[in-house]
Structures are given as structure tokens and as C-alpha cells.
């Protein structure tokens, strides 16, 4: 029992929990200043997440892409790469899924499988290209990945408008039903919430991330390159290969998000003037989760649930949902600067020590 409790006394667990509490309190304070009722707001937030089985399902649906994007950013981080191009990789993944989903005719299960794999590979290659340019030409991946986001966005617009248009609308044609990855019976059970097989794949991806990083030779190389590329090079590792391989995996994670959104949720791609921004949320998830598998899973769940719940807040308490984005910002801020959190609870821990 003592051992179990000690987990919660460890700073790595205490800091995030305290940060979440302080973040929510700060959010409440801002709501008070803005003339809103924070209790009503948080009440509608929680109701929105847990209220009905439909809400629980939809909350899960919004958690999935955040966890995946978190993994995509995290794996690159561990290799010392800052991948802000996940948005672009998502687009390539969704484009791949859309092409297969609309243009091919295959039996149901196979069709979905081919679409997911094609999208994932397209996303992976889009990521690998960034790694390749970094490895061959030494161009900083931050530059490449941001440029690639825009290129992917317009490339997808071109493909959608030219080959898969839906006349009179700003979106693509629908995928064929055989390519859908929705879990029909579960969706019906949960009041029509868009539950899809991507949920299972996400859990597998989290496990894969952990094993790959900590239990394989490639994962060892990845971490070595992340800690010190020169040392890795001198010890005989092929750093360029590691960079390309890591960015490929990162891109696959991103690409999968795209395939989930197209095949499992929307069934089409809307033509937007900006990228989804999910990849940038992924940066927050990865950092909040400390770039570990479990951390990313928890952080993605938290941010995903809060983001979904914020819709209920603006509907139920008429509080703008941006408040929740601010709360998320505060939470990450405090986790990143634990010194500030210690200021808050130093008096508290001192008391506890005296009692013991």
C-alpha cells in the first residue's frame, strides 16, 4: 500500500496534477472577471463529456487524433527533431485514404484496410522526405516541415477539386461505404457517436511506441541520436538513416490520423483555407506527456476531453470555449515550469513533513 501511495507523492505525478488544478482555478478566475459563472461552466463541461453514451463516444473520438499526433511529435522529439509538420502529414494521410476510398472498388474489409495503409504510407513518406532533406542537405526540419504543411494543403485542394469534387460544395466526394472504418454496432449502441477502429489502432500505436523506443535496437539508436548525434555517429550508428526512419514513423502516426478522420468520422475532406491545427495540439500533448507512451496517452486524453467538453461550456453556460484553450495553455505552462508550482505547494509539503 505504501509503495502504491508513494507513486502519487513522486514529483513527476504531483506536478501535473497540481498544474491541472491550478490551471482550472485560473480558468475559473478569468471567467469570474469576464462575468461568467465558472461553476455552471465546469458543470456543463463535465456533463458534455460524460452526460450521455453519445458524448462519451464523441469525446473518445476527439481524444484519438490528439494521442496519435502526440506520438508523432514525441517520437521525433526523442530523436532530437522538432516536427511541426504533423498537420501536413495528416493531410497526406487523409488524401491517400480519400483516393482509395472513392476511386477503388474492393470488398468491404479489404477496401478499408487498403485505404488506411495507403494513407499511412503517404503520410509516412511525406514525413520521411523532411528527414531525408535534413539528413542530406542539413536543412533544419522546422523550416521544411512548416513549408511542407502549406504544400500538402494546396496539393490536397488540387487533387480534391480535380479528381474527387462534390459539385457545388467546398468539400470532396464521399468515400464508398466499403471503405468505412466505423464500428457500426458500437456506434448504434452509443447513440450514433462516430466510433471507429482507429481507436484500437491508437492503443496499439501507444504500445508500439513504448516497445519500439525502449526494447528495440532501432529505438536505442533513435534515443542515442536524440541525446547526442555526434556521439551516435562516432559509435557507428548511421544518423541519416535514423533521421529518415524516425520521420517516417512520425509521418505514419500523422497519416493515420488523416485516415481516421476521413474513413471513420467525416467520410469526406472539407476544403479549408488553413490546416487542421491538430499537429500543433500534438506538440502540446507530447510536451505535457514528457514524450513517453503513457504520458502522451494521458495528456492526449486530458486535452481531448477538455476540448470536446468546451463545446458544452459554450452551449450550456454561454462561456466561450477559448477559456478551455487558455486552461490547457496554463496547465502546460506549469508542467514546463515546475518551479512555479513548487512555489504554490512548498508551504503545503513542509506541513506534511512536519506531521510525519
Amino acid at each position, binding site marked *: 500500500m505504501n509503495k502504491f501511495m508513494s507513486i502519487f507523492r513522486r514529483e513527476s505525478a504531483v506536478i501535473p496534477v497540481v498544474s491541472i488544478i491550478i490551471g482550472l482555478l485560473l480558468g475559473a478566475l478569468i471567467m469570474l472577471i469576464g462575468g461568467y459563472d465558472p461553476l455552471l461552466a465546469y458543470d456543463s463541461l463535465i456533463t458534455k463529456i460524460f452526460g450521455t453514451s453519445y458524448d462519451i463516444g464523441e469525446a473518445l473520438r476527439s481524444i484519438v487524433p490528439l494521442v496519435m499526433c502526440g506520438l508523432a511529435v514525441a517520437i521525433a522529439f526523442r530523436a532530437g527533431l522538432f516536427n511541426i509538420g504533423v498537420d501536413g502529414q495528416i493531410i497526406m494521410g487523409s488524401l491517400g485514404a480519400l483516393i482509395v476510398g472513392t476511386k477503388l472498388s474492393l470488398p468491404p474489409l479489404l477496401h478499408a484496410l487498403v485505404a488506411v495503409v495507403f494513407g499511412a504510407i503517404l503520410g509516412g513518406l511525406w514525413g520521411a522526405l523532411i528527414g531525408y532533406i535534413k539528413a542530406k542537405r*542539413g536543412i533544419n526540419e*522546422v523550416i521544411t516541415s512548416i513549408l511542407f504543411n*502549406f504544400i500538402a494543403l494546396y496539393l490536397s485542394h488540387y487533387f480534391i477539386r480535380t479528381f474527387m469534387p462534390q459539385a457545388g460544395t467546398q468539400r470532396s466526394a464521399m468515400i464508398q461505404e466499403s471503405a468505412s472504418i466505423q464500428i457500426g454496432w458500437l456506434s448504434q449502441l452509443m447513440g450514433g457517436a462516430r466510433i471507429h477502429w482507429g481507436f484500437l489502432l491508437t492503443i496499439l500505436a501507444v504500445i508500439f511506441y513504448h516497445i519500439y523506443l525502449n526494447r528495440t535496437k532501432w529505438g536505442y539508436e533513435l534515443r542515442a541520436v536524440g541525446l547526442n548525434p555526434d556521439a551516435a555517429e562516432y559509435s557507428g550508428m548511421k544518423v541519416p538513416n535514423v533521421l529518415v526512419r524516425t520521420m517516417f514513423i512520425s509521418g505514419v502516426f500523422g497519416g493515420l490520423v488523416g485516415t481516421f478522420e476521413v474513413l471513420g468520422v467525416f467520410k469526406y475532406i472539407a476544403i479549408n483555407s488553413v*490546416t487542421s491545427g491538430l499537429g500543433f495540439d500534438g506538440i502540446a500533448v507530447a510536451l505535457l506527456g514528457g514524450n513517453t507512451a503513457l504520458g502522451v496517452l494521458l495528456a492526449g486524453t486530458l486535452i481531448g476531453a477538455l476540448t470536446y467538453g468546451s463545446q458544452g461550456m459554450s452551449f450550456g453556460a454561454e462561456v466561450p470555449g*477559448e477559456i478551455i484553450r487558455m486552461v490547457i495553455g496554463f496547465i502546460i505552462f506549469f508542467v*514546463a515550469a515546475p518551479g512555479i508550482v513548487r512555489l504554490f505547494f512548498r508551504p503545503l509539503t513542509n506541513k506534511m513533513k512536519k506531521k510525519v
Partner: protein
Amino acid sequence: MDIISNLINGTLVFSTAFIFAALGGLISERSGVINIGLEGFMVSGAFFSAVIAYYAESAGLGGLSPWLGVIGAFVFSAVFSSIHAIATIGFKANQVVSGVVVNILAASSTFFLVKLIFEGSAESPLLTTVFHKFRIPFLSDIPFIGNAFFNNYPTTYIAIGFVILIYFIIYKTSTGLRLRAVGEHPGAADTVGVKVNRMRYMAVILSGSIAALGGATIVLTSNGNFAFNTISGQGYIALAAVIFGKWNPVGAMLASLFFGLAQAVKDQLQIFEFAARIPNEFFYMLPYVLTMLVLIGAVGKARAPKALGEPYEVGKR
């Protein structure tokens, strides 16, 4: 000839915001603090300039109102850069994380405030008084060069002025020497009496104010109001310009100009007849593809300030 003259003019128009933001990022990074928050500072600058200029306009200040917007953006955006400074310097937080937080906080709090101030509206009202192109007397009458260089928005002239000023400060003054020393080798700078953290605080806070001018430029010269998509990725392009320009003010300006040129080429190309047969999307893509190609073709690795990303701890070797 007219086309080339217009092309140069357009390049300057498009680059201005990037130049400001890149200069901001550069100052922070030269002091050793990574600045991913440029996007957030631009959002903040766009917001404050739009709101302040709107109220100044309503108060009947006329032509003065955009100027107040610019000043307001410069002053108030320091709030966000102070957050970055306190977190990274005071509390030694991970600088990338803190920058991401700045981006999240700047976007969410300004959208929240817009809804609060303008009663639920998702964007600020359209300004009627914005900056107009200003013809510099005599100089603008020179054929070709006049239209290209001396018929531009006031913000463009200010941006170029900032480049010269910051170049001069960084390379020709003792403050600049200290700034560079703090970014390259804080331990050595400390030994000779430079207050490392004070220097970094100044650099980071100023960086937010300068980058905010980029956001203000977009509102006050092209968009005319502040909405959720006013700033969409420009800050990251500026970040790229800092690296592409090798952490040098002139380099960052050239990188920004190049990016502006690619945008201007897009606009000028669309005039030609053959352009009608090319899908629009390829024109939108052009600036990014061109930048990519030039980067791949360019030789030489960029070298970041040596202490970039490391909080300064006394006694650490």
C-alpha cells in the same frame, strides 16, 4: 519593366510582416532563448492593433488611429513575451514548451477577448482608417525605382529601418556584443560582468514587441480587422526566416524578402494569359515550393547561437 517594378513593390509589401517577426525571433535567439512563440506574438500584435485602432477611430482620431494601433501592439504584446521570459529565464522552463504555451495562450485569450469586447462576435469590426501607401516626394517620381521602392506602406519603411538599427546594435555597440556573448557563452559573459539573465529578459521581452509589429502590419495594411485566421502560419514562416537568414538581421530580412518575392511572383504571374490554364492551387503553392527549392540549392549549414536553448546556471561548465 512595369511588371518588374510592381514585383519589387509587391515583394516589399508581402515581406514586411515577416521582417518584423523574424527580427523579433532573432533578438531572442541571439540571447540564447529559443522563440517558437513568434506566431503567438503576431496574433497578439494583430489583436491589439485592431482593437486599439478601432477605438481610436471611434474616438475620432482619424489618421492617428493606425499609429496608435502600432504603438499599442508594440507595448501590450510585451505581456506575452514577459510570460515567455519569466518561464524560460526565471524558472528555466523548456524553451520550446514555453513558446508553444505562448502560442496557445495568445490565440485563446485574444479570441476570448474579442468575443467579450464585441459581444460574441468572432472578429473585430472592419477598420475604416488603415495605412495607405505613402509616396516619398521626389524619390517616388524616379522611373522604375520610384514605384518599386518609394511608394510603399509606412510599416515597410519602419521595418527596413529596424533591420538597419538592429544590425547596428548587434554588431557595432557594446550592448550588442553583450547580447551575442550571452547567447554564445553565458559563462564567459558572466565572468566579465555581463548580467546574463537581465540581458536575456530584455531581449526576450523586446522580441515579442517587435514580432507583434508583424501582426499589426497585417491588420493595418491588408486585412483591416482581427479574426481567428488573420495570422495563420506567418509566425512559423518568420521562424524559418530566422534560421534561413542564419541569425543575422540582414540575412533574416533577405530570407523574408525572398518569401515575399515568391508571394508577389504568384500575384504577378496571374496577370498573364497562360496562367489561366494553370490551376489556382499551384499558384498558392508556389511561394513554399520556391523557398524549398532555394533552400535545397543553397549551400552551407546554418549555425545557431551556441547556448541556444540552455538556461544559464551559475557555476555550470
